[in-house]
């Protein structure tokens, strides 16, 4: 082995290698840029992910504000309360309770109201981390009975200042300070309103926590002995109801952690897609670079150089270029990482410090080596096929299959799969992604082949177009590679864009005129008539429809308890979450039966019938006759499925209920009432003011305002995704440039022949422009086709919204792509256009 290594090193010709690296600067530059591009986004994401994870792990206790946290959307069950008391009594831990909910607050000395996010906390909160205040004073020194701490946004929107008073529920409280940071909510992704901290001593005075209220109940634990942490958590877990949850700071996955996990996961997929396209660019650029060396290699072989000699020396050339590209990629990736704070803004926790870790650097170097090796093997191995007789006959010859090519394909496939699994850490998701990418590239390849085959046979009379088409198919033109790469990359970007437009159109811009735009919740039964009277003052076109709601959770199906942990691990909806039940004896206007003859049997054969929505069938294959056990305020209720409903309206803005009971079953259950209203937007504020003044416990939500806020958040995230997706387009652009350089000789010849035969420079330029326009147009058209199909399928089957092809925007996307490809292609062709024919003729007759 050592002897073999020595023999290989002995084959190296340093002068030749050095000269090869420094000549063919343009193709070498494209190759280096492709290597760098393949790594830039992955290095940036890995480095950023490391920095975020370090911050989150370091501050894990602060993120939870406790060692252990118990939470529930319902009042804590008796066994849990008893267990907590026992733990406190045994001196194992100190506890603090918090209550989080939305409610409308009012200016104490005015009428203005604002939907806010309230958090009532006991002394002790937070056990870890600090709630920092604008004044710099300690949190619990300010948050005393009668005083609240609020977010600056509340002061701005209600035109208040510290010292003013707020009406919250039945209590009038004084604003004591402004909160600037919460340890367990370092990032404010989206809430229904600004934060207000309230001391627990004021909780009863608020009179806001009632039956049916939507409250997040939390109990925080600070253990007295760290070694008891898991034991205490296990004791609590043993008495939990399905709707209750416990987590230690080690095991918890907070909202912040989940957000960054999902964001980095998605961006990682985009980065791997970019890597794949850049890898195709590496292969294309190297092939072009080696084609320029065909004559040299043939001459070397006539002088006695063996295939091994040629391979070893060109491997050395590629390695040097690869190292330069790797270093450039790592450096640019680390710079890109610095852009994350700009891109994410206040989505980024303030305690995240972006540092360069040795691990990131090592990973970058390893990635560079592997990428260069995998994507350069095939062109290097193919050097063996070049015979010395190429000097005399420059035919390309038939490509011969070798078993070494199969090995290279296996290596490439293993590398790509390994990359995906390393990034995603999930086998099933990884395989889906690989399948998706391969499917996309295969589809792009198939469509490219078909379209180019058809175009090549199209009868064309216009001379410039005809010459341009011939140019697309000149030898060594990487037309197929360019179209496949560009169309795949652009297809993804177009799809994201079209999807965003359609989601915006469905949920933000084209809000249905007849859809509710305000919701009034937490109406107690005895308040209903009074609220109806207040609503009537708004002179609505249609009377308000009051709907009873009962909060419940599912505990068992057909007698079998549900597995809460397994349910919560599902992506999307699950059976362990709280549900809102309602009762009504008839179908709503937008409902229809899909199973069962009637909504409920009228013969009294079923004691507690329930009708379910067909969306529930995606979670479990419910059958008519199945028994579902609900828990309503601690009381079990077993109901039998007697029908399945579906929504007949495509627009999902009207309220709907997964479970519908007959009135007789739930009429007496603890309930609150809500109503959804359609009214003039400028009437919502005054209505809210009137209702909250009379009934402080009732919450009025302006839906369009909420949707606008959510849309703004979504748009920020889409901008981040779009920014990263642009890197994949860069790969296509580099391949365009590489192809222009690779076919330089042929283009020069064409240009000279045109001029010698009497064409002017304008004609030559127009032919090249037409060629690039065709190239860009073909790639963009294919991309648009795939994007339209993809976004239609997502809108139709995933989001279940109407699809609009947005013709204008689509044409715009195609036009921008054509302009981009033409710009790049013409920039790379400038030297050809500018050269005089006689100089080029001399260059052509001189073979070297």
């Amino acid at each position, binding site marked *: 082995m050592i002897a073999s290594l020595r023999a290989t090193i002995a084959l190296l010709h340093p002068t*030749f290698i050095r000269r090869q690296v420094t000549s063919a600067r343009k193709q070498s530059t494209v190759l280096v840029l492709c290597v760098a591009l393949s790594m830039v986004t992955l290095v940036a994401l890995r480095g950023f992910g490391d920095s975020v994870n370090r911050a989150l792990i370091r501050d894990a206790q602060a993120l939870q504000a406790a060692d252990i946290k118990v939470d529930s959307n319902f009042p804590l069950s008796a066994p849990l309360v008893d267990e907590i008391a026992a733990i406190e009594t045994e001196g194992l831990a100190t506890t603090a309770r918090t209550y989080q909910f939305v409610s409308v607050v009012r200016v104490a000395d005015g009428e203005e109201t604002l939907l806010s996010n309230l958090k009532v906390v006991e002394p002790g909160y937070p056990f870890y981390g600090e709630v920092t205040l604008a004044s710099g004073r300690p949190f619990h020194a300010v948050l005393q009975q009668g005083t609240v701490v609020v977010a600056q946004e509340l002061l701005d929107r209600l035109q208040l200042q510290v010292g003013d008073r707020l009406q919250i529920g039945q209590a009038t409280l004084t604003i004591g300070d402004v909160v600037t940071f919460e340890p367990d909510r370092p990032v404010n992704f989206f809430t229904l309103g600004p934060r207000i901290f309230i001391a627990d001593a004021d909780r009863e005075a608020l009179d806001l926590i009632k039956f049916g209220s939507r409250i997040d109940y939390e109990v925080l634990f600070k253990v007295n002995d760290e070694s008891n942490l898991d034991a205490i958590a296990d004791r609590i877990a043993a008495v939990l109801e399905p709707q209750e949850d416990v987590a230690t700071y080690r095991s918890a996955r907070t909202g912040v952690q989940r957000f960054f996990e999902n964001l980095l996961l998605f961006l990682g997929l985009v980065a791997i897609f970019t890597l794949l396209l850049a890898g195709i660019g590496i292969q294309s650029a190297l092939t072009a670079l080696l084609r320029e060396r065909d004559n040299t290699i043939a*001459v070397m072989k006539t002088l*006695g150089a*063996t295939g091994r000699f040629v391979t070893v020396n060109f491997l050395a050339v590629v390695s040097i270029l690869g190292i330069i590209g790797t270093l450039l990629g790592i450096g640019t990736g680390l710079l890109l990482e610095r852009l994350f704070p700009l891109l994410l803004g206040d989505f980024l926790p303030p305690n995240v410090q972006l540092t360069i870790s040795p691990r990131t650097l090592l990973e970058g170097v390893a990635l560079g080596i592997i990428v260069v090796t995998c994507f350069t093997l095939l062109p290097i191995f193919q050097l063996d096929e070049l015979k010395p007789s190429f*000097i005399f006959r420059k035919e390309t010859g038939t490509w011969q299959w070798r078993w070494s090519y199969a090995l290279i394909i296996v290596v490439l496939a293993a590398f790509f799969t390994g990359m995906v699994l390393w990034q995603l850490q999930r086998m099933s998701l990884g395989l889906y992604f690989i399948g998706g990418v391969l499917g996309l590239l295969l589809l792009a390849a198939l469509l490219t082949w078909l379209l180019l085959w058809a175009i090549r046979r199209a009868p064309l009379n216009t001379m410039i177009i005809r010459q341009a088409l011939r140019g697309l198919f000149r030898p060594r033109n990487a037309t197929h590679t360019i179209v496949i790469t560009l169309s795949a990359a652009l297809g993804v970007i177009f799809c994201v864009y079209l999807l965003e437009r359609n989601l915006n159109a469905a949920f933000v811009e084209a809000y249905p005129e007849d859809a509710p735009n305000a919701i009034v919740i937490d109406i107690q039964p005895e308040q209903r008539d009074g609220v109806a009277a207040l609503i009537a003052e708004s002179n609505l076109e249609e009377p308000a429809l009051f709907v009873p709601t009962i909060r419940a959770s599912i505990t068992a199906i057909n007698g079998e308890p549900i597995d809460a942990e397994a349910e919560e691990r599902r992506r999307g909806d699950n059976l362990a979450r709280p549900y809102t039940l309602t009762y009504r004896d008839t179908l709503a206007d937008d409902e229809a039966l899909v199973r069962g003859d009637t909504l409920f049997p009228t013969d009294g054969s079923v004691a507690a019938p329930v009708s379910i929505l067909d969306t529930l069938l995606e979670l479990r294959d419910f059958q008519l006759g199945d028994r579902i056990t609900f828990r309503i305020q601690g009381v079990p209720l077993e109901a039998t499925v007697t029908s399945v409903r579906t929504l007949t309206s495509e627009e999902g803005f009207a309220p709907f209920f997964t479970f519908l009971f007959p009135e007789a079953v739930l009429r007496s259950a603890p309930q609150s009432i809500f109503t959804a209203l359609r009214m003039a937007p400028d009437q919502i504020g005054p209505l809210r003011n009137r209702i909250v003044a009379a009934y402080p416990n009732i919450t009025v939500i302006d839906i369009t305002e909420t949707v606008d806020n959510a849309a703004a958040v979504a748009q920020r995230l889409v901008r981040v995704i779009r920014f990263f997706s642009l890197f994949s387009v860069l790969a296509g652009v580099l391949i365009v440039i590489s192809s222009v350089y690779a076919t330089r000789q042929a283009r020069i010849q064409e240009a000279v022949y045109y001029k010698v035969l009497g064409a002017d420079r304008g004609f030559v330029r127009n032919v090249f422009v037409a060629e690039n326009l065709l190239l860009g147009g073909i790639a963009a058209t294919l991309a648009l086709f795939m994007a339209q199909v993809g976004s239609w399928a997502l809108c139709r089957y995933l989001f279940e919204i109407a699809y609009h092809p947005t013709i204008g925007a689509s044409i715009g996307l195609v036009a921008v792509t054509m302009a981009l490809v033409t710009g790049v292609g013409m920039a790379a062709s400038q030297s050809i256009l500018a050269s005089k024919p006689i100089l080029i003729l001399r260059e052509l007759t001189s073979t070297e």
Partner: protein
Amino acid sequence: MNVLEAKAISKVYRVDGHEICVLDDVSFTVALGEFIAIMGSSGSGKTTLLSLLSGLDSPTTGRVLVEERDITDLSEDELAPIRNRTIGFVFQSFHLIPSLSALENVMFPAELQGQRDAKTKAQALLDRVGMGHRTGNFPHQLSGGEKQRVAICRALINEPHILFADEPTGNLDSKNGDAILDLLLDLHRERQTTLVMVTHSPELAARAERVITLHDGRVVADARNGVAAGAQP
């Protein structure tokens, strides 16, 4: 000893389904130290014959022997040392490696052999052909005649037994062409290297000891010149 032997070699190319027979049943031998001219009009197959004799290409049928060794079925790696040590090649279009200087181009075959004195030998050869002052220049900085001188030096550095020259003056003006031919012949006499030269020029062919004439891929004449090798007709 016959340094070169062609036994009934034929070459057929297949292009787009059509067969093109470039050489048809060509046989002859070449003795050590001979100066042979292979003559014929354009398309007669002379360059193809040269590529087969030198092992740069393989015949469709027939055998090629170099120094009584059958090279017909040898692999590229087996042919490499033969190309490096036994054969030298001078091309019509020079085919110097563009990224190497004149000196480095000449050194290259010797370096492949691992010769430590490659540079000294190369310098001496370049001095011999009057290029000693241009050793650092790259091919694009040299004239046609200068390039061909460098190419000749490169072909001779490993002292091959056979030198193949494919229209070595084809891309040169008459003055340079005569000078190059004189140089080739001088070196052939000095080193007793077998010289096989392809040409379409009867004047050039007349300076050879023996002329093999090809027409439509077949040998139509194989005659010794009455004139002594190298002399003007």
